[in-house]
């Protein structure tokens, strides 16, 4: 017990008025390293002790603004840069929709960071040992008394003078407090390798568990319940109409609104004679024809109808559409080929509707005339 070091001299007071008075006197005397302990917050203590305003507000400000900007940057990156998507007809950068999120994140980060910085920076958490702990003095001031403790590290500290001063301002039970050097953590525990190691391990465990959960476990039974829902899938058997598919077929004889029956199946000559193009070669029709030609015809026939397939020889190359035979065909004959197909070419009846087929033929005629212009075109 010989290596006890003096921590402070304490004095007990009985009423809140006395402690305010004592705090004022202590501050006036010029002591810097002293503290006042009361069982509850005493109003007016900050001014009596001449404490400067707390710096905690700046932590809240900095962390709050960090939260605001983080939320803004996160949402900006997601919905403007990484994955732009129209949601509810709003622009990619819908600022008003961001404001509530920014507000929430600001409040969240400011409050959590304020509490943490209060604990860690001001209270030196997780250092939890203090010389005043477990003393008779602390027992009293956390019950029904008020106390002042003037610390030995104060530049003005002088044991006898402090004792006399405390007695002068009305303090009772003036006691010195001693502590063992080994009992006190002088270093901040938060910087110890063990503690940091613990944080790293916790980080790895939590993020690893999250990864496994989200990417593996959720795809194992019984977590697959989301995938087996009580709903009808198009190609499944129908549990209501037995023996049918869930996607029911239309009633026999149903035709779609714009359906016209094709009368010339297997009769190319009749088709060539009977049908004429109902569309005029207007800009709009040619634009439609160009779109459809480039979509459905050009993969084999080539963009300009020269039979230069881009399918790299996976199919036999089709003949050129600029041949004299095709040029002399009527529009109806070409229409018939689109409807029925020819040789390797399948029918394109289901891909294009009537108007689109005729428009495609108009565009094909324009392509043909670009290589074999009529004399009238050259004037």
């Amino acid at each position, binding site marked *: 017990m010989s290596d006890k070091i003096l921590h402070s001299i304490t004095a007990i007071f009985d009423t809140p008025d006395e402690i305010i008075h004592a705090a004022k006197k202590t501050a006036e005397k010029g002591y810097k390293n002293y503290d006042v302990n009361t069982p509850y917050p005493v109003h*007016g203590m900050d001014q009596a002790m001449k404490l400067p*305003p707390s710096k905690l*507000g700046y932590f809240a400000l900095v962390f709050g603004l960090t939260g605001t900007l983080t939320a803004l940057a996160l949402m900006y990156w997601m919905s403007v840069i990484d994955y732009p998507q129209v949601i*509810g007809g709003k622009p990619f950068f819908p600022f*008003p929709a961001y*404001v*509530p999120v920014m507000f929430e994140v600001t409040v969240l980060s400011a409050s959590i960071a304020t509490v943490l910085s209060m604990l860690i920076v001001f209270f030196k958490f997780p250092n939890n040992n203090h010389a005043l702990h477990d003393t008779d003095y602390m027992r009293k001031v956390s019950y029904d008394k008020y106390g002042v403790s003037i610390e030995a590290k104060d530049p003005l500290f002088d044991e006898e003078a402090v004792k006399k001063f405390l007695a002068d301002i009305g303090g009772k039970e003036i006691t010195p407090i001693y502590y063992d050097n080994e009992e006190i953590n002088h270093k901040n525990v938060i910087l110890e390798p063990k503690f940091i190691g613990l944080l790293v391990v916790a980080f790895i465990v939590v993020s690893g568990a999250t990864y496994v959960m989200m990417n593996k476990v959720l795809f194992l039974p019984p977590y697959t319940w989301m995938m087996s829902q009580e709903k009808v899938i198009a190609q499944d058997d129908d549990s209501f109409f037995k023996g049918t598919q869930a996607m029911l077929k239309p009633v026999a004889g149903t035709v779609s609104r714009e359906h016209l029956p094709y009368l010339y199946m297997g009769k190319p000559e009749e088709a060539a004679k009977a049908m004429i193009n109902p569309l005029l070669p207007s800009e709009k029709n040619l634009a439609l024809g160009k779109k459809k030609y480039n979509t459905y015809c050009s993969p084999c026939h080539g963009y300009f109808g020269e039979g230069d397939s881009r399918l790299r020889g996976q199919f036999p190359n089709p003949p050129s559409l600029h041949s004299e035979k095709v040029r002399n065909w009527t529009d109806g004959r070409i229409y018939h080929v689109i409807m029925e197909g020819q040789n390797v070419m399948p029918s394109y009846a289901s891909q294009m509707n009537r108007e689109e087929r005729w428009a495609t033929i108009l565009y094909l005629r324009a392509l043909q005339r670009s290589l074999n212009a009529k004399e009238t075109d050259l004037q």
Partner: protein
Amino acid sequence: MSSTSIKIDYIKKDLPDIVIKLGYGLFALGLIVAALAYFTDPTRAAYNNLIVLMFLTSIGLGALFMIGIEYLMGAVWSVPFRRVMEVLAGVLIVLPIVAIPVYFNMHDMYHWTHHDVVMNDAILKSKEPYLNMTFFTVRIAVFFLLWIAFYFMITGNSRKQDKTGDQKLTTRNIRLSAIFMPVFAITLTFASIDWMMSLEPHWFSTMYGVYYFSGTILAAIAAGTFIIIKLNENGYFVKGINNDHYYALGALLFAFINFWAYIAFSQYMLYWYANLPEETFWFIARWEGSWAYVSGILIFVHFVVPYFGLLSQPSKSNASRLKFMSLWILFAHIVDLFWLVMPTYSKEGVKFGWMEIGFPVLAIGIIIIVFSMLYKKMNMMPIGDPKLKRGINFRL
């Protein structure tokens, strides 16, 4: 008999002549402007008159609300300067007079008052059971009556306590305040809907009442804060009212600045998100042409500047900062009302001239005159209130 044992050495000082002269000067100036305005352009004058009416309602009703809240919450810190709020609530008495010119010009301002328009408009026709002249008149009359009745009852009890020191009067005022709160909520909401929202009778917002309420309380606290600090600095109260009291006022101002921004933004964002034409046209009218500048300025004047002005802890208890911010917020409330009312008058763009300056001057003149007249009749501190001593000793 604890009330007699409390000794408050309050000596009443008269207001300096300059304040009374200033009040009458501003009032006379404003009155001349108002008369000229009604002579040259009665419609525009009536719109400006409406802004004055809503501004004075804000001050008077907001002050009465603060008194009621104090009684209901058993608040202690605000007791020493409750009288200031009571005097400000006296503005309620002159409201009917201010409302008369607006009432007689309603035909030019509210198109739901036109019978032929209403009959040819399905929406207005379905709103007709509520929006018609008879019911409107009855409602407004009942609102004024209720407000003035509660003003006289609550402040009357409080003033009687100066002489008797009877604690039962506090209990009675607590009961009155409890009745006043729902009355306040309903009448304030419907008054704002009737006077201002019905300027655009096709438009509707369930947040309109709360929006006006947030501005109301802010304006009342701001006016109170300015007067309290002025009076205290010149020794019209007893010693002991200090920065801790100022801090409480500043924190209240700061809280309601945030509340206003929260409500204003919520209202805007919900309409922006839903994007329905019958709701958005009200905001589009305020976001087109020169009105866009007013909308933008409003955000800065009503939120950004006072928010950062009162953000830090020391600024909330700094007397000069608080005085400046109080006046600033009163100005912001006038801008807010201008933004709410005037786009209906001049859809094509902002019209700002001598009328828009003269009418707020009239409002300030009215407040100062009411204040100085009521000041003569009462002590500036509720010296019989049992909570007064504790209120003066209030520390953070």
